[in-house]
């Protein structure tokens, strides 16, 4: 027999019996960050590819949402801070070792850039819109000339943002379930996949839809591969990691994860899109919505499961 008890102390609120430092805010923030990264990436990429006339949704319309999405994401992050009045401390230093820090700085750069970027398409999206302030008008005109540079910047920053949403978690060795290098690519791909789904949902253009349907399928396939890889990696690792994997393989997260995330969020949309390609008609909105929802739930589950996996003293079960 091996008995471990904490006989006194250590029932700190938010720490025990199960770590609950992060609630809904962080997953929402990670989801929106990933989504925004995907949207910006596709917009910039296809802009550079000269598709701004054909892939109107991807290049021009979708980025209009990004500032809003980022604002909501940042709002969620802000809500999560427990010492809010000091949030400005984030921007008094750059700490490269802290993903939280460079994430904050990336956001500080990408947020205005996304505004500028979408501003250059305002007239295309809302042809009747008139800029009432001459200065601003001139500024937008100037911005339009910088689109190529901005696009390159966006590609880099959106990749960073997308990776960051995963690396933020995987940097925490203390949480066995997060402690895997696969989380970064997984969240990056998942973010881009939700971005593709978002575009798919809005696009009215058949060619654009076909394109993003394909992109989405490839991304989903990679995601599935990464997920399998993730668990194989855990199972081949130390005891605590095996235990972490078991949270999903028979443990409390098994049902939600495999049905909602893997099933409804990945496999079903993949099949639906496959069928669509084969000419069977499935309303494209359904797989797209499922992907978005799956992406959101994935982040909720990963944030939650990471916090219930620890090295010492498990109070659960």
């Amino acid at each position: 027999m091996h008995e471990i008890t904490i006989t006194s102390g250590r029932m700190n609120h938010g720490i025990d019996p199960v770590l609950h430092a992060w609630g809904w805010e962080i997953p929402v923030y990670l989801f929106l960050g990933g989504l925004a990264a995907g949207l910006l990436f596709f917009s910039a990429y296809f802009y550079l590819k000269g598709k701004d006339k054909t892939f109107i949704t991807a290049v021009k319309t979708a980025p209009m949402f990004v500032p809003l999405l980022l604002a909501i994401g940042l709002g969620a992050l802000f809500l999560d801070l427990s010492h809010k009045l000091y949030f400005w401390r984030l921007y008094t230093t750059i700490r490269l070792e802290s993903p939280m820090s460079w994430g904050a700085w990336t956001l500080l750069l990408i947020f205005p850039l996304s505004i500028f970027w979408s501003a250059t398409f305002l007239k295309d999206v809302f042809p009747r819109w008139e800029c009432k302030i001459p200065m601003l008008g001139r500024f937008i005109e100037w911005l339009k000339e910088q689109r190529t540079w901005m696009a390159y910047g966006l590609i880099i920053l959106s990749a960073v943002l997308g990776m960051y949403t995963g690396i933020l978690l995987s940097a925490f060795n203390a949480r066995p379930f997060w402690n895997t290098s696969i989380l970064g690519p997984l969240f990056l791909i998942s973010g881009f996949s939700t971005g593709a789904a978002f575009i798919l949902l809005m696009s009215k253009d058949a060619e654009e839809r076909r394109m993003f349907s394909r992109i989405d399928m490839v991304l989903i396939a990679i995601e599935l591969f990464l997920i399998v890889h993730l668990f194989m990696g855990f199972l081949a690792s130390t005891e605590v990691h095996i235990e972490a994997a078991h949270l999903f393989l028979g443990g409390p997260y098994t049902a939600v994860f495999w049905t909602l995330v893997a099933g409804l969020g990945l496999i079903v949309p993949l099949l639906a899109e496959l069928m669509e390609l084969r000419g069977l008609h499935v309303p494209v909105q359904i797989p797209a919505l499922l992907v978005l929802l799956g992406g959101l739930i994935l982040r909720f589950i990963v944030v939650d499961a990471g916090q219930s996996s620890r090295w010492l003293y498990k109070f659960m079960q």
Partner: protein
Amino acid sequence: MARYAMAIDTKRCVGCSDCVAACQTENNVPVGFCRDWIVEEMHGQYPTLDLEIRSERCNHCADSPCVRSCPTGASHYEEGGFVLVTAEECIGCKACIVSCPYDARYVHPEGYVDKCTFCIHRVKEGQDPACVSVCPTHAFIFGDLEDTNSEISKVLRSRKNKTLIPEAGTKPHIFYLI
């Protein structure tokens, strides 16, 4: 330069929790929270049993993930190896909380993140930390590892000891004499 550390004799400790109570009062730790805690770990089967009692707290790791993950520098190393949080720099993002393999930190009701300070305010004045000075069984030895003649350096040389989850790679500075 000093490198403070703590050695805790599991053979002496009776798990009375005085160290926890002393920390509460000394440091005004709010009700419902604690900076240190007691763990009893038992192996064996009746009637051949082996019990280890440990008083645990932040390990003031030399390579501490909490400091690395802090976006503002609020979590930092202090001269002497103390790992501290400057309340006025902490935004309460809790990255340090999830990064600590020992779960040694918590959010203070006032919003900032709090944990054991090794009672730096006392150490600066030449006193032992509160938990150390109160322990009725004299289970603690607190001191400077850099000084090879210090009591702690000597005891770590002469007695078998261990740290908790060394595999987490944090280089903890609380040693358990076993």
